[in-house]
């Protein structure tokens, strides 16, 4: 049960957005394969601390794959080698003795490196602020069962709503596009009858903000779908495009 391996980490170290950054090689001995990837980084940091060195900065919080706070490129792949899994859920037993593991931050024009592996993803919040909501003030909502919604529609909306906003899709995309992220929210709300009244305005405003934040265009590479820990489908992007075109033609929002 307590197998151990020795690995070599090549970790990106960067003091801040202004710094150029470099890879630091850290040999790590006796990694218990039961550890999660982040627990492995914890032990490295604990060791660095005892040596009086600066800890490797990385973001994380829930450590169960739901908050979307963690994420790095592991050997070039967002969230590492496992499908449908966040970095915090990846375990060291997926690696072998003697492996060299490269760990880098998300790389995208819209995500500045904050320090080492941590990046600034506030652009994703800005996209939501541009329209990723239904304008329903607190109070005065009609009875929840006043509006029946077919089960398949609710389930589809839920598939899209499962996005955790980690930014892996952006990191994986050759164009650093956030279309998968944006389309997931647009789809969830466009599918539901409550979301229809603002659907046109929403698609247009969210797309405009997406572009203004420096995210690239979608050229159908499907890399985003491949790394998404929540398996958000690119059919959502098709739906966003439909909503966008519909809105552009038929409305005065433009």
């Amino acid at each position: 049960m307590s197998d151990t391996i020795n690995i070599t980490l090549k970790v990106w170290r960067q003091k801040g957005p202004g710094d150029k950054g470099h890879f630091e090689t850290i040999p790590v001995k006796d990694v218990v394969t039961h550890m999660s990837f982040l627990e492995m980084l914890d032990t490295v940091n604990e060791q660095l601390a005892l040596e009086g060195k600066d800890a490797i900065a990385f973001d994380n919080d829930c450590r169960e794959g739901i908050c979307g706070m963690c994420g790095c490129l592991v050997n070039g792949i967002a969230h590492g080698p496992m499908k449908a899994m966040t970095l915090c859920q990846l375990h060291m037993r997926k690696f072998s003795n003697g492996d060299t593991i490269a760990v880098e931050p998300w790389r995208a024009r819209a995500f500045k490196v904050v320090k080492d592996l941590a990046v600034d993803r506030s652009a994703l919040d800005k996209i939501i602020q541009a329209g990723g909501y239904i304008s329903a003030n607190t109070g005065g909502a009609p009875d929840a069962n006043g509006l029946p919604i077919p089960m398949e529609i609710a389930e589809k909306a839920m598939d899209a709503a499962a996005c955790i906003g980690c930014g892996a899709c952006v990191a994986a995309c050759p164009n650093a596009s956030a279309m998968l992220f944006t389309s997931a929210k647009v789809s969830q709300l466009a599918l539901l009858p409550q979301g229809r009244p603002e659907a046109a305005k929403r698609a247009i405003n969210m797309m405009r903000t997406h572009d203004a934040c420096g995210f690239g265009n979608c050229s159908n590479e499907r890399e985003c779908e491949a790394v998404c820990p929540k398996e958000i489908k690119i059919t959502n992007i098709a739906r966003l495009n439909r909503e966008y075109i519909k809105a552009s033609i038929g409305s005065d929002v433009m």
Partner: protein
Amino acid sequence: MQLESKIPAGPLTQKWTKYRGDQKLVNPANKRKYTLICVGTGLAGSAASASLAELGYNVKTFCIQDSPRRAHSIAAQGGINAAKNYPNDGDSIWRLFYDTIKGGDFRAREGNVYRLAEVSADIIDQGVAQGIPFARDYGGLLANRSFGGAQVSRTFYARGQTGQQLLLGAYSSLSRQIATGKVKMYPRREMMDLVIVNGKARGIIVRNLITGEYESHAGDAVLLCTGGYGNVFYLSTNAESCNVGAAVKCWRKGALMANPCFTQIHPTCIPNSGDFQAKLTLMSESLRNDGRVWVPKKKGDTRRPNDIPESERWYYLEEKYPSFGNLVPRDVASRNAKYVCDAGHGVGPTGYAVYLDFSQAIQRDGKDVVQRKYGNLFDMYLNIVDDNPYETPMMIYPASHYAMGGLWVDYELQTTIPGLFALGECNFSDHGANRLGASALMQGLADGYFVIPYTIAPYLASIYGEAGSVTEDHPAFKETTKQVDALFKKLTSINGTRTPDSIHRELGKVMVDEVGMSRNEAGLKKAIDKIRELREEFWKNLRVPGSLNDYNKNVEKAHRVADYLEFAETLAIDALERAESCGCHLREESQSEEGEALRKDDKYCYVAAWEYKGFNQKPELHKEPLVFENVQLTQRSYK
């Protein structure tokens, strides 16, 4: 100190209606003169920020994470209760109220709990209006399930991600207000102190977690929505950044800490597998519906579970509680797991785990049925433990999960510091000595959406002439910043040999062993001594490398651990003082003849509210007697 609960007079069912009818209102045109500070963006904080901004107040909102959407509420799985009675199975506001107050073992206020049940239905309406994709039936109406042993189906859910969907709903409303400019959002900030001017909460000092800078923020009231302190046990189901810091800072400034010993230990978590472990993952309690709990009869038996013959397995819950069996309440299941492990029957690498065995269910219903019910949980287990639960029994062990205790608040959610309010898990208000499953989400959102918009008005009306009068250049901000800076300088200049984490881990062990599920006087006294020793060790031998003016996890952890070390002692003192078994915890000296938990209403039917008396000083106890006019106090029985 006289604790004024401010429960409105009149019949229980009319209190909230009457309160809303009688209260002072703030004129709509005047609302924009007020600035409210909201710390936290979980369900409570996001809901409050959005709702108050919609009313016209200016709101400044803070959170530790890089985005408000990542607050710990995101991790809640099971569901949210509401007295909608959609299934027509006999639910009502009264029944939800009664179940909650009885579930809390009669250690919460009737008035608060009734209000919670009353507004519960509005939460679901609000959520649907926001576009939360709750589970639905074929007819398109909302689906319900029964949760945590409730006899009615009143739990609404969105797959296993209810907390995520509710939080994203609140976050979307918050985002809308950020876009209008009514809310100014400050992520990656940690509250370091409360600023009090003329006896009123007037602002906060935060640390920018990227640059290390201290920032001053002034306002007309402060709302603390900073979540629970489950991480005082080190290993828990809580997220890494969950902390007691903000609450402790307010406690030091005069707010009272209520019932800190009321913590909930969840029975079905994936056990600890080594010293590197950072958190424990919760597995849905529903697993106990089909899994059978057992340990080897022989102590220290190291055989693989499948090699242990049926006759040598001890199904201790089924044996001890023939009528409830594996479905005994959370605390009973947790406690008994600890007993058998303490006695040497535990399994797994640390000897602190018990088996949860599905072989009988698989034989009876087939693997398909079991997979349909629990497939995702089994996958999660397989990924973490690397063992297939369809073939070998799962291992589980209890873990700290939720804090019922917290800052003392009155009916208006105001602490004893005027202008300081506490919402959500960080207050003590509604769950008494034990929280029912699916009720924390309900309380956080009730406080944020439907209670605070009303209950903050009388305070704001009372300070009308002073609205906006205190700004960041008031000397109190400079003074408080100086104190915060001194603390950090002290933390980073000790230069010893222990990391904050290593001391926190040691504290956790003391808390789990002596102040956890089952407590006794001698153990609690020992724990208090040990906590003091650890605190001394911390201040003598801490090592915090790296810079203060930087993204530095070691710095963040160091001051959080400092706060835990102070808070933990009060938690243990509270546990010592309350010499009764109650809610989630068993006091070993207070048991019935059959060895079950015995509550002592004649002596302990009160809220224990602790006043801070200084570093290394014993806090002072204030009692708020609990008065029950509408329900009869009964003892639980699960034999």
